[in-house]
């Protein structure tokens, strides 16, 4: 499917969802909900009009296939995994794991330097955040405690 059709599809879906939400607010018939909903409907209609213009105008999509797409998908998966495990494992362990995974799997470094870097990086930053009183997830291994 051409990229422009995907772009237009996303824009039309967003417009419809936004307008529907605005209408549901207006229908509540409560003080100020109408005003609030009207603004949302206005934005939805504006997006719909602009998406319509984008469809009609001869503006080609500039998305080009690039060889690094697979790596980006892997990086996103790694980030999602990091966000997923952080509440359970805490900052220190999850950062250690994600750094080592990134360096070995995605950057192609050997295990020993990656391990050394991951230990130094995760321990030093965990200590640094604690020193700055920046709150990071603690998980089951709350070190260093803030």
């Amino acid at each position, binding site marked *: 499917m051409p*990229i422009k059709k995907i*772009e237009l599809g996303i*824009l039309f879906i*967003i417009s419809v969802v*936004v307008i529907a*939400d*605005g209408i549901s*607010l207006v229908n*509540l018939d*409560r*003080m*100020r*909900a109408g*005003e*609030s*909903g009207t*603004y*949302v409907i206005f*934005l*939805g209609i504006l*997006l719909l009009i*602009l*998406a319509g*213009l*984008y469809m009609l*105008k001869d*503006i080609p*999509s*500039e*998305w080009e296939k*690039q060889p*690094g797409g697979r*790596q*980006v998908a892997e*990086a*996103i998966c790694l*980030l*999602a995994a*990091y*966000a997923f495990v*952080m*509440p359970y494992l805490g*900052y220190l362990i999850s950062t250690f794991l*994600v*750094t080592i995974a*990134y*360096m070995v799997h*995605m*950057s*192609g*470094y050997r295990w020993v330097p990656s391990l050394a*870097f991951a230990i130094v*990086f995760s321990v030093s*930053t965990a200590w640094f955040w604690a020193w*700055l*009183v*920046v*709150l*990071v*997830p603690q998980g089951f291994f709350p070190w260093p405690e803030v």
Partner: protein
Amino acid sequence: MEPFLLGILGAMTPENLVYALSGCLLGTLVGVLPGIGPVSCIAILFPFTTYLPPTGMIIALASIYFGAMYGGSTTAILMNVPGEISAVVTAMDGHKMTKKGRPGPALAMAAIVSFMAGIAGATFVAISGPTVARLALHFGPAEYLALALFSLTATASLSGRSLIRGGIVTVIGLILVTVGYDSSSDFGRLTFGSETLIEGFSIAPVMIGLFGIGEMLRIYEQKIGSSEKVKIGKLMPNRQELRDGLAAGGRATLWGIPLGILPGMLPSVTSFLAYSFEKQRSKTPEKFGKGAIEGVASAEAANNAAAMSNLLPLMTLGIPTGPSMALILGALMVYGLMPGPMLFTLHADFTWTVIGSFFVANIILLILNLPLVGLWARIATIPHGILAPIVLVLCLVGSFSLRTSFFDLWVCVIFGLIGWAVSRANWPLAPLCLAYVLGPIIEESARQVGHLGYGLLLERPIFWFFIFLCGVSIWLTRRMWAKTQAELANSEH
């Protein structure tokens, strides 16, 4: 004069000097990393500044911004990797000078004219700030509505080749900021019954995702960077180069300052305009694009002068003129600070100290950049494999730390993906950022105007003036965009 001198003294306190120095160091450090420009730099670092007191926070943020602007030119000159579009013009001649074996004079000239333009820009802010603030005291909701709309239309039309795309991205930004609890109606909007979405999307994870993670993914995909070590050699330009460069930098500063206060007139556009002006008036235009020091000087001076005068509308009106300013405003809003005309009256001590810190930061940057240029050049060659996990961890920790919310971690990751996809499809991100910050101002002003009666608008000439400027900006900037693109294409050939 007295408040200004007191401001300088305030900025020179050991505490504020440490904030300015740390901001300059961090900004330059992140700014020299290939592909990371000032906007990404502020996005990545701003959550950490919220732990500082208000004065320290804005000093650190402004210093990070100036540092990133300085740092961006280093990678542009040495590696031909501009951190953002404004450094593209610097790279055109600066990297040619590196190839000719003269990176030192190009870097030194960039630092000297950036300092010169920065000081001139800060002086302009100090002189005109109180006057603009006094004028702004007469602004009501109608004027703020029109001014915010002007800022949005100008940015949307200037930030990409297609005005329609700019408009779409702007509206999406306005929609995103409406997600969550609406205090005036006491209802959730676009939350679809989710209790998590009631809190809305905090500005920090959205911006860190769009500009920090999105940019890192783009760098990773395109393998931007270089392990090529460049020998800096002799740093100072010769007398002729110094004379030509300073003259070009002076002219470009005069361009950059007034252009920088216009909404949407991003430092990148100012650089293009100053460069093309310098090329047109030169007796040897054929030298441009082949390593002319005037090219480096004009681009860097205009860029830095505009970066400084960008702060005037932000500080006096509370209206950002571009994405960097929008991020600074967003950071201030996280802290509960709202810049505007009252800054110069109710919080004069704070304001003058901040203005004083602009001067101090420029001096610090000159001191840092000239002797430490070799160190920055070495940092710029850090392999992406080591750099990426560091930046990604910074992004996620920054997103989490402000509200200690795991939801924000996911928001950051998802907006990172969106940011990468949007810039990959060559859609502009700047209007989204601006719309996200200006959205609440627009909605609130529109509501107030509605309550006062729309007939009021007929009695507000400033409102109509800004609405007229919206139309003019769209028409004019389309013409300018086409012209600068043509200039750039000519220079590249």
